């Protein structure tokens, strides 16, 4: 039996005017903090989120929304994929380089580990799901 928490999903995208990462919140608003995201726990709920995303995309509230797989660990929503974890945390550059000013207001001071602490919680058996395609554009 898997020790992993079952995966669930949130709907995420980028805000139109500035491109920042946002999540669909419980009241239908798009919020910057994943803690405020509404969670889909069944396929039906996931479909409902996607339908809401399509409507909000048509209304230009958000750009290219998609479902991101997450798990609930210690009361927090943590994305399964490293890609989504970086989207939440911002660039993970080592910000203690002398003279360097971090471009990310969300990056903490000091060296951030390569998510090894989270990885152990998320993926204790070294297994996981295959990557889900997300919207990208060619370089």
């Amino acid at each position, binding site marked *: 039996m898997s020790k992993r928490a079952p995966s669930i999903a949130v709907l995420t995208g*980028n805000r139109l005017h500035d491109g920042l990462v946002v999540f669909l919140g419980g009241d239908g608003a798009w919020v910057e903090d994943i803690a405020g995201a509404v969670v889909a726990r069944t396929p039906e709920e996931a479909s409902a989120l996607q339908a809401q995303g399509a409507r909000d995309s048509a209304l230009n509230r958000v750009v290219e929304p998609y479902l991101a797989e997450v798990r609930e660990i210690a009361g927090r929503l943590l994305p399964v994929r490293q890609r989504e974890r970086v989207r939440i945390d911002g660039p993970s550059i080592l910000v203690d380089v002398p003279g360097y000013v971090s*471009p990310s207001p969300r990056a903490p001071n000091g060296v951030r580990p390569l998510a090894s602490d989270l990885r152990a919680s998320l993926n204790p058996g070294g297994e996981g799901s295959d990557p889900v395609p997300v919207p*990208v554009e060619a370089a």
Partner: protein
Amino acid sequence: MYRYDEFDAEFVRQRTAQFRDQVGRRLSGELTEDEFKPLRLRNGVYLQLHAYMLRIAIPYGTLSSRQMRKLAHIARTYDRGTGHFTTRQNLQFNWPRLSDIPDILGELAEVEMHAIQTSGNCIRNVTADHFAGAAADEVADPRPYAEIIRQWSSLHPEFNWLPRKFKVGVTGSEHDRAAIKTHDIGLHLKRLADGRLGFAVWVGGGQGRSPFLAELIRDDLPEADLLSYLEAILRVYNLHGRRDNIYKARIKILVHDLGAEAFAAQVEEEWRRIRDGVLKLPQAEIDRIRAYFAPPAYDERPVPAPPRAAGRAFDRWITRNTHAHKQAGHAIVTISLKPIGGIPGDASAAQMDAVADLAERYSLDEVRVTHEQNLVLPHVRSGDLWQVYRGLEAIGLAEGNAGLVTDIIACPGLDYCALANARSIPIAQRISERLSPRQDQIGDLKIKISGCINACGHHHVGHIGILGVEKRGEEHYQLLLGGSGAEDAALADIAGPGFGPEGIVDAVEKVVTTYLELRSNPQEPFLATYRRLGATPFKDALYAAA
């Protein structure tokens, strides 16, 4: 430097106004994302992981101080105080608001810059040797030809919707600092048998998912025939290049599938039809463009020798970061954007302003951007080197590590790029910190890191290459050995099973330590040792415990 004429200025002004209107219609909801995306991409605007990204063209990597100050101003006003210089000699801003981008393009137009054709399936920004016009080993300055190609390729109606993007690189030296064999077309400007200038034409190079080195298809192209021959190549590609599969759409696949000889035959046939037509370059036009790149007015007064006793760090910097200039009493200076543990290619607004000041005062107002993500002051009097060094020291950019193991190319990777599968920057930072104490002992060694198979970090031609992949949602890194992007170009070999984020730095260190143990003498560089011994001893060291 080239200066816009009235046509250039009006063209960029109109394009900026057009895009302002398009952005306005997108923000108002009149345009959908599907309608807007191809328009924004044609103007260098991507939507990345965290925000929009604006890619600005720096033709053949040449900037004036005024242009550099404008980039600093944009970084400070519209971004978060930093710009990222790329392996295509471009600059990327990672945090602009879509609503601000028309204003940014307006500011760029004031200094003869734009973001046109920095994306899309068209002919991209033409790159050149970053020492062009200054290098002692140069036959001729390749930038006039890069400018001629820029003018020909800008909004070329026949080649604006190619099967895939198209990159041209030009060098005027035997020593290839422009990596021409990794380009769709690589041009080597040289003296032909009759003593006149002409080109060796290499076609079908490229990295990405299917890496190929370019093939030589003509070794004696007269300069007057440059555009007609390029047009013939592009026509063959446009006609036969695949449009059904994005992974097989680059010209490298066509050249590989047809064979270089058969491809060249088709080009020659098309060229025979058009070579004496409107694209024949009149000597007067070549001379007119060349005049923009005439050697600057060098200060030829005798200069005192630089103070060699100024300290070991200055000596290292002189040894590694200055290069022979064609003009006596002058040197080319590489400004390393690779401070130990720093972010490859990043410069803050304050650093950009300071570099502009140094260029204005000490380098005849010129700055270059290198495909190795460094900057260059191309024309520094030998007697001014100490002052330049002190100026760079004050902004944290005086590391004397050009070409050393800490002078790492790294793409933005998963920290910024929507295509990436793994992070590049933190890996580069950790390798830099780990190996910096031994970098002088190690000597010439190029590490190149890409966060995905698209290979923007040139991992296929790294002496040591690192490719980030995604494995079950997590980052994983392949290690490659033995590549080169120079005149001895070679594609690197995959060493074996990959490593996790923690293990890849140890693996690189193991390869380097093995090299130090096996090199025949301290002057034998890593690549020579690898070529002499092959991969086996390095693989043994990497996987012995497995």
